[in-house]
């Protein structure tokens, strides 16, 4: 479609937006490449394109990628005439690659999405609305709790992403180590302030270990703190938390450092960028921490290697308030030429219990209730997985929901860590750091 044609096709947007496009496109000399990718209406089942190979891209480490590949191979076995090209890579590599591909309207047919990242692709028109395919049953989501599907609905009213794996962040406790130190485990109904109080009281009995890993730089755990205060990370176009909440958070963790219940600043910073399997909790340096439920097993592997105890998951310290969960999802790209196969693949992936047993929750807990129940009932599934599923059911029953982050906010993860580190090293006062971070949140949400 010609450039002018595309402009005319979307009269709803102000024309001014396009004024610069031809100039830059000419400069790049790639007008053709710059065009394409129409945001149409959500397609229904009878008009689906079915040409070319099915390309699928996802992220993960080698073990996880191998498991997903195995599931894809089963689907390939059921569709012998279909050419499937898989493009697995690491988490960072996946998003770097997708952002370049999206600019050229050359996304894989089925790209893996994630609740913190998907909005940017949805808002940029890179993904196809799926509610038509959901309504006519091509993608059957009836097995997934409605609130989970619905939380994926974009502000524009469309659903672009179908969850295939759920994870949630919670507290992790090294119960055997706590027991051998003669310390009572913290109460799961605590908020973070309760955990810190517990840690300060417990620390004298713990010797070289620290009671608690500092969560000061984790935006995810700060969100739990905000939830416990009746707030949240994001409101519509502004920060969802008050400055007081953030200042209290900084001071909470500064107090924990001062009392010796969490490791000193340099150690905390040294471990900031480390994979879960090498985290302070995993190497036995701390006895209580927080992490994603899917990473608890990584901690366990390292703990087992050194005989340092065992890790159990608990609810996130929201002080009893409903907590948020995250989701890995499948989407169909706007430039996909084989929508029929793409939809069929997604449908297969979310409903196949055979696949779920291969994955063993490496890509998250199965969102389909029937599949999860089948795993709960099976003798082939590890107890730790069953516990995680049970805890997830508890979270859902208590009103937990999939938290989809607004566009432009991904950078806040790193910015939050930097703010906390500046406070922790005494470079910035909590008050000033809170002001600065709230400005960063507003900047991110403004789409600057």
């Amino acid at each position, binding site marked *: 479609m010609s450039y002018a044609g595309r402009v005319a096709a979307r009269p709803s947007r102000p024309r001014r937006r396009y004024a610069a496009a031809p100039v830059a496109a000419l400069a*790049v*000399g*790639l007008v*053709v*490449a*710059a065009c394409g990718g129409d945001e149409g209406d959500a397609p229904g089942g009878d008009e689906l394109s079915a040409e070319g190979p099915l*390309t699928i*891209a996802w*992220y*993960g*480490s*080698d*073990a*996880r*990628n*191998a498991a*997903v*590949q*195995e599931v894809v191979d089963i689907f390939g076995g059921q569709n012998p005439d279909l050419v499937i*090209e*898989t*493009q*697995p*890579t*690491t*988490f*960072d*590599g996946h998003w*770097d*690659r997708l952002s*370049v*591909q999206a*600019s*050229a309207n*050359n996304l*894989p047919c089925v790209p893996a999405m994630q609740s913190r990242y998907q909005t940017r692709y949805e808002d940029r028109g890179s993904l196809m609305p799926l509610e038509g395919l959901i309504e006519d049953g091509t993608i059957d989501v009836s097995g997934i709790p409605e609130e989970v599907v619905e939380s994926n609905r974009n502000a524009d009213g469309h659903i672009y992403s179908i969850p295939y794996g759920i994870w949630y962040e919670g507290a992790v406790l090294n119960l055997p180590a706590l027991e051998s130190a003669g310390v009572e485990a913290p109460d799961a109904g605590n908020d973070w302030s309760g955990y810190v109080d517990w840690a300060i009281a417990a620390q004298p009995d713990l010797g070289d270990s620290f009671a608690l890993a500092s969560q000061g730089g984790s935006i995810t755990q700060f969100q739990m703190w905000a939830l416990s205060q009746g707030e949240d990370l994001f409101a519509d176009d502004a920060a969802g938390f008050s400055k007081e909440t953030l200042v209290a958070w900084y001071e909470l963790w500064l107090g924990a450092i001062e009392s010796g219940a969490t490791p000193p600043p340099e150690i905390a910073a040294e471990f900031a960028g480390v*994979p*879960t*399997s*090498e985290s302070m909790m995993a190497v036995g340096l701390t006895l209580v921490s927080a992490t994603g439920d*899917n990473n608890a*097993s*990584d901690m366990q*592997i390292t703990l087992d*290697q*050194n005989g340092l105890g065992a890790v159990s998951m608990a609810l996130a310290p929201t002080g009893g308030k409903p907590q948020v969960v995250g989701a890995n999802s499948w989407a169909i790209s706007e430039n996909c030429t084989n929508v029929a196969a793409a939809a069929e693949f997604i449908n297969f992936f979310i409903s196949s219990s055979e696949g779920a047993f291969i994955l063993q929750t*490496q890509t998250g807990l199965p969102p389909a209730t029937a599949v999860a129940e089948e795993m709960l009932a099976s003798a082939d599934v590890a107890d730790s997985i069953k516990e995680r599923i049970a805890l997830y059911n508890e979270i859902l029953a208590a009103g937990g929901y999939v938290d989809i982050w607004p566009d432009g906010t991904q950078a806040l993860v790193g910015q939050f860590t930097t703010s906390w580190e500046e406070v922790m090293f005494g470079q910035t006062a909590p008050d000033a750091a809170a002001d600065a971070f709230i400005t960063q949140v507003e900047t991110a949400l403004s789409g600057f």
Partner: protein
Amino acid sequence: MTAVAARHRPHQVSHRVQRTFIHVGLVSAAFVMSYPLLWMTASAFRPSEQVLVEDSLWVSTPTLENFVNGWTSVAQTSFGTFFLNSLVISALAVLGNVLSCSLAAYAFARLRFPGRRVWFALMIGTIMLPYHVLLIPQYLLFNSLGWVDTFLPLVVPRFLATEAFFVFLLVQFFRLIPKDLAEAARIDGCGHARIFGQIMVPLAVPALATTAAFSFIWSWNDFLNPLIYLTSQGNYTVPIGLALFVDASGTSNYGGLFAMSLLSLLPVIGFFLAFQRLLLDGISTTGLK
């Protein structure tokens, strides 16, 4: 003993002492610098539960499990495929860079033609822009040519001297060569092609060997471009495969990472050793005595 020999001795002794000092200094520097790598090598042969725990170089229970697991850890394909892909791309990069960059360098270093300085400045300018912002425009270009998921975006630019680093390197080395040689040859009636092929290239063998070695190594280690352009697993290169060992989103296989990192160093070291001779002997084979 003759008086002459006796007179020489103090000088020889001080010379020998100096040599010993140099060697002691170099050996200790080499040891300190390579300790982390020796540790990585040792770790590659340790059972996976000891990989990050043990600080020393001693391997109490050597095992090859990391190599076996690492080699086949990626679904559908093995590291053998990645090595083959990396070899093909790197070998073509060497060929392309040596050919195209030396031609351009000869023009910049030895030929006087209008516009030369402007082109030279533009050439240097192409090194200065951080490559991250070029990724998308370049991707648009190669995508419109239909080159995505082929080796072409990684290889064709090398044949067009787009790595200005090497052009600049060769220019500086060509300019080390005394002009009299070429002058004489031209007076002899040689064309530029022959001056280039018979005088400049043989005289610049160390620089060309450097170009070849660096081309190979950089192309071998390149991560972002293969990541963006090579999308299907069968086309992945070694660094993409290595990155899969450590991912924030799942269990990290350090044993496999170290084992495969070690293997991936072998071709590069091999290439480097092979070109050492050229680096070293270049000068003695030329007419410059």
